[in-house]
């Protein structure tokens, strides 16, 4: 039954996400549009874009994740589904892990897969692209997991979206620093190992702890 819970919730989330196919590509489009805003708002110089490209893509990924998080539990709260999960005998942390996994697979994973193409338009050299990709693959699951805690904490609040951003963005910043730092290091020919390990460590921590934190947050806020 335990494995089932994970699958049950992941499948439900996928069902909801695939219901309108446009919802599926939306985080991706959003990511691209944000990343596009920069070249438009900066002085037109090629070399500038190449230098800041990695950072811009990381910031876009963080913001795209953030925008998707807002709606993660909101409708479940309003239609009473959340209550039902809380009083069900299923393991809530496992259920939430399933939900977050499905959510990530349609946001973070997609972003990471698409980022290399975006990098090319910024004329980022291939070795840096590779590092960026690796960083996103390791970093975005942590973003989703940590972000879900914030989403759970703010679900009952009116205008929770903005509060969510404020409590979650500071937590995202270490991931952002390591991820973007990797690209910068690679650009100056330094070693990226330490940042890589840090990202991996954060991921392991997030994977083991945040499901419980999400469940606890939901239990606290719903009553």
């Amino acid at each position, binding site marked *: 039954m335990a494995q*089932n819970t994970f699958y049950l919730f992941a499948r439900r989330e996928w*069902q909801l996400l695939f219901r*309108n196919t446009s919802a599926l590509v939306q985080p991706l489009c959003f990511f691209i549009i944000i990343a596009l805003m920069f070249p438009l708002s900066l002085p037109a110089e090629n070399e500038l874009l190449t230098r800041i490209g990695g950072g811009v893509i990381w910031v876009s990924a963080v913001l795209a994740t953030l925008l998707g998080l807002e709606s993660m539990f909101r*409708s479940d709260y309003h*239609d009473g*589904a959340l209550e039902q999960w809380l*009083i*069900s*005998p299923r393991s809530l942390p496992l259920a939430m892990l399933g939900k977050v996994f499905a959510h990530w697979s349609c946001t973070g994973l997609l972003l990471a897969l698409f980022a290399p193409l975006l990098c090319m338009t910024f004329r980022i050299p291939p070795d840096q692209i590779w590092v960026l990709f690796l960083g996103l693959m390791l970093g975005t699951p942590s973003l989703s997991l940590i972000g879900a805690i914030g989403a759970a904490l703010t679900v009952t609040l009116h205008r929770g979206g903005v509060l969510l951003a404020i409590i979650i963005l500071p937590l995202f910043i270490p991931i952002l620093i390591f991820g973007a730092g990797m690209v910068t290091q690679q650009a100056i020919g330094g070693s990226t190992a330490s940042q890589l390990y840090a990202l991996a460590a954060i991921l392991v921590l997030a994977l083991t702890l945040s499901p419980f934190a999400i469940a606890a947050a939901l239990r606290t806020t719903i*009553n």
Partner: protein
Amino acid sequence: MSQTNDTPAMLAINNLECSRGDRTLFRQLSYSINAGQCLHIVGANGSGKTTLLRSVAGLVYSPKGKIQWQGENIQSNPSYQSTMIYLGHSEGLKNELTSVENLEFYSCLDGHSDQSHVDGDLAQMGILECADLTANKLSFGQRRRLAFARLLHSKAKLWILDEPFTGIDDAGRALIETICVEHLDAQGMILLTNHRTLSQSRLAPSLAVLDLMDFQSSLDHS
């Protein structure tokens, strides 16, 4: 309150007190329910019926008083949770999923490995024609019926129903009464609220009534 003390009650509420904000809704509420009983909680608007039901469902925690299931506290007690169903005003239906998908999810959640009964359940509740409509298209009564379809094949012993007859037409009301009576006959328990008396209904034989007024009057004494 007539209680036989020799058989241990299935669900026992002991000296429960609930407050919201500054207001104490009720105090020293004790009651126990045994298999085959239906408890009808009555009280004026805002008297605390919903709060009581949510406490029993484990959604509201009050530090004063105890709620026990077969002698164990109900808080984070999986064996209790797997034998209890709570249906309140919000039905927990996802607007974007169809009726069938919604029901299948709850059927899975309740531990059924096989979902073939879902279509039959919808038919029994009279909403088979809406099987493939997404839930946001259902009428108010159809939503309520869909929520109740979950009871048809549930293995839960204790049903907690908050105003189950709201928005449901006469045929539906008879249907739900029948389902409840069958559940009670199978030694199930029901805790419900309703603003109309149920003494004329088919539930009457196994009905007990708990008036929240009685536990508010004690507020003035203290």
